């Protein structure tokens, strides 16, 4: 079957891979700012302050606004491996405290000042490897954002009363998660798939831990992990890069680097047999199934192939599992995600099982398809082309606007050490062959590497 070649425009990506290599060999300071043109046509400037703070600025002058993101290389896995903490949930709890006042900015003022000056989508998220803070603002307020963000990087004050009040909000978030069977299932999936690595612990932690975190623990966490040498700033939007770099030097240059507390987490042992667990939930109206396969870390050479395989299986109406599960009447829906992390991650698939059908029927149908994909005798070139184009479409959609572009690039700051990896990843996915997909399916999507979680009505 002949498919139109829609990929020619991506050939420029190939230059990015060599660029990443070149950057890795250069020790940057703000006096050695590197400038390059991204595959989407926008110029990017990068540098590093002497205190270790990394900076990436992508110029986009389409509208008089910018997105500002601060990425800290600390997430829920780090608190568990830190012998002084050995806890779960503090990284997330602390993220809340970053909005509750500094030596210079009293509680509530951070939000109030940004809001009055036109902030859009101001928030923060905590994940396994990192914590990020972000806001979008009108261009004229770049200095204001730097002033406020640099202040909370260096001067947070942990007030006991505010800590206790915020504890209530975090417990509210915890309660919300418990009412959501999808969230409960996801936590159980990670807890079962990982036996040793701290990715197995829930980001929000346990109710008991949330209730007991102390002011001293929060202060230790802040002092140890919120330092310029553990952070990266990504700005996307209508900014003058020279002016922005000078503001960064002015406001962040005085932030002191700290000895960091990261410990190497234990290596997850290879899974040798399928694991299966189930749970009951009062909100479930029909069974739910979640499946995970162990995959390598984000920068592993097999990951672009696995992304295409993920797209083949679950992206779009024409995906394999949409056909064999949803349209065969076995499930209501299907979704999947390649969870790319700094350490080995997961290839996940989930679905709501149609009433009258058993989760095992879905597994049988999927296994049959995985065998077909891996079989050298079967031609899967059409499916690979479809998946590749669906993947590219999702990439192009994410380039529409500062926030989504920053989101597309930002996660790779943590998992790969540079946001440029996002583009490298796309250029590599462009070249994936059907044989590579077959090999990846045979290597990773096997029963002995699988964890299954099944949710049932209570």
């Amino acid at each position, binding site marked *: 079957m002949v498919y139109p070649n829609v990929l020619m425009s991506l050939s420029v990506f190939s230059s990015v891979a060599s660029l990443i290599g070149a950057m890795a060999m250069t020790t940057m300071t703000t006096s050695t700012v590197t400038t390059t043109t991204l595959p989407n046509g926008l110029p990017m400037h990068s540098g590093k302050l002497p205190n270790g703070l990394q900076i990436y600025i992508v110029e986009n002058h389409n509208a008089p606004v910018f997105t500002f993101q601060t990425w800290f290389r600390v997430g829920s896995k780090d608190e568990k491996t830190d012998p002084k903490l050995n806890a779960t949930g503090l990284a997330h709890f602390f993220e809340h405290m970053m909005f509750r006042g500094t030596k210079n900015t009293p509680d509530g003022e951070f939000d109030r000042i940004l809001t009055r000056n036109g902030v859009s989508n101001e928030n923060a998220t905590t994940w396994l490897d990192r914590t990020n803070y972000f806001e979008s603002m009108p261009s004229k307020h770049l200095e204001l954002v730097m002033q406020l963000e640099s202040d909370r990087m260096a001067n947070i004050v942990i007030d006991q009363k505010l800590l206790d009040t915020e504890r209530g909000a975090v*417990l509210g978030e915890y309660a919300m998660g418990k*009412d959501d069977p999808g969230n409960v299932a996801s936590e159980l999936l990670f807890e079962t798939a990982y036996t040793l690595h701290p990715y197995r612990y829930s980001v929000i932690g346990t109710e008991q831990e949330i209730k007991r975190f102390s002011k001293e623990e929060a202060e230790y966490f802040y002092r140890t992990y919120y330092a310029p040498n553990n952070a990266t700033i990504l700005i996307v939007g209508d900014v003058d890069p020279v002016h922005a770099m000078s503001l960064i030097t002015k406001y962040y240059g005085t932030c002191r680097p700290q000895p960091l507390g990261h410990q190497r987490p234990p290596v997850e042992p290879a899974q040798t047999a399928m694991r299966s667990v189930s749970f009951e939930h009062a909100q479930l109206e029909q069974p739910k199934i979640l499946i995970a396969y162990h995959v390598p870390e984000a920068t592993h050479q097999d990951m672009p192939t696995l992304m295409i395989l993920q797209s083949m299986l679950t992206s779009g109406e024409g995906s394999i599992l949409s056909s064999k599960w949803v349209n065969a*009447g076995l499930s209501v829906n299907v979704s999947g995600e390649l969870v790319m992390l700094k350490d080995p991650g997961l290839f996940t698939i989930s679905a709501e099982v149609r009433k009258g059908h058993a989760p095992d029927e879905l597994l049988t149908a999927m296994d049959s398809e995985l065998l077909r994909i891996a079989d050298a005798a079967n031609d899967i070139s059409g499916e690979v082309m479809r998946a590749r184009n669906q993947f590219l479409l999702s990439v192009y959609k994410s380039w529409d606007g500062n926030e989504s572009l920053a989101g597309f690039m930002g996660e790779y700051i943590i998992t790969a050490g540079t946001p440029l990896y996002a583009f490298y990843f796309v250029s590599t996915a462009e070249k994936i062959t059907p044989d590579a997909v077959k090999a990846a399916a045979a290597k990773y999507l096997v029963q002995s590497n699988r964890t299954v979680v099944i949710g049932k009505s209570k």
Partner: protein
Amino acid sequence: MITAATGNTFSTSAAPALVIEQDALMKNAVVQVIVRSGSLSDPDDMPGLANLVARAMLRGTQTKNYPRLTEAVESIGGSLEVRTDREITVFTGSVIAVNFNAFMMLVSEIMSAPAFDDDEVATLKGIVKGELLTRMQQPKILAAMAALGTAFAGHKAANATQGTVAGVDAAGIWALRAFHRERYVRSNMLVACVSPYAVPEAEKALRAAMSVLPPGTLDARSVPAPVMTGRRAVIVEKQDMSTTPLFIALPGVAPGDKDMMALEVGNFVFGADFTSRLIRVLRVENGWTYGAYSGFEQLYRSQSSQTLFSLYTYPSAVHAARALPKAFELLEAWISKGLSEDEFAAARDALSGRYAFNIDTPSKRLDLRVAEVLGGAPFMTARQYDVKLSGLARNDVNAVIEKRLKLENVVIAAAGDGAVLKPVLEKIPGVLSVDTVVVSP
């Protein structure tokens, strides 16, 4: 007939109405085909028909069965999905830009010659019924459906736009065909597009795609006024909940209403932002809930009809007895006393600065232009918005809030343990009744 043409933007009211914008940097094209018939056009005995028709159209044409159609769309880097609202049905397509023309030919075929194959429709009905069940897993949906069921009792506006299991079962192939024949006509459609192509080129492709449809007539319908009488509370009985989702709903205004901007300023202070009163009191000061919001589109989205204004929060179950009355008290105080001078000034500054984010991408600008054509607020540049906003005074805003948002007729809907919630809701001032209602798919 050209009604607006500014730079790289074009719109026309000649059927089908077109809205087109160019962005030369885009690598994909986005297309919206909007049919001005939604769930309000469902027959009384077939709630969910409009949604079923639209989704069935994506499951095969007269020349391509479902697998072939899907392959044709997705292999060229395209995607096409559909959403049904009360007043409209929206097909949203995206495609890698170089395949725009091929994609539009497929869209044309889908719009003009759907197969409505028996087996495919039967499969789809099973999927939709499963989705209706899945929705019931969300505590927020339970409270929302209870609020709508009370506010629009006896009217199809109370239904989910996906309909009901019984309605989906009742819809025969003949009903799908008839609905499609009458509503998928040029006069009842609006097509919008943003792409890297020059406007005339995009217009040509859109016109060619829609030319195969008959002219037909417009079928625009409106959400009726709610049928609320006094302050009524309803409970969806649900055990083992960690949170208590709560809606407080009252009659609102239409998106294009002359008072909407004043109400937006007021709502910004009350519950539209992280610094608003609701979040500040219920979360920041007391830690009772993770979220608390208010707005005009929380219960349903409207294009030109009157909305319901609502407050939504989901306190931890252990804090519900304190959070629910407090939420109502905050609402009462906001409506009766309005905004302080400082709150008003802060809201005006915030909205002025924030408006740039409503129009900072081609897709967002397209959405606003489409909303205007459908009866919503006029599209405004940042300068036009500022001029209008600066014309508002605090007293105007407070007067509009008091005049347009009345607490005489209110629905309070919560999901959780009735034994705990009933005495709490009975104590809310002026509540005439607290009933337990059943929400079913």
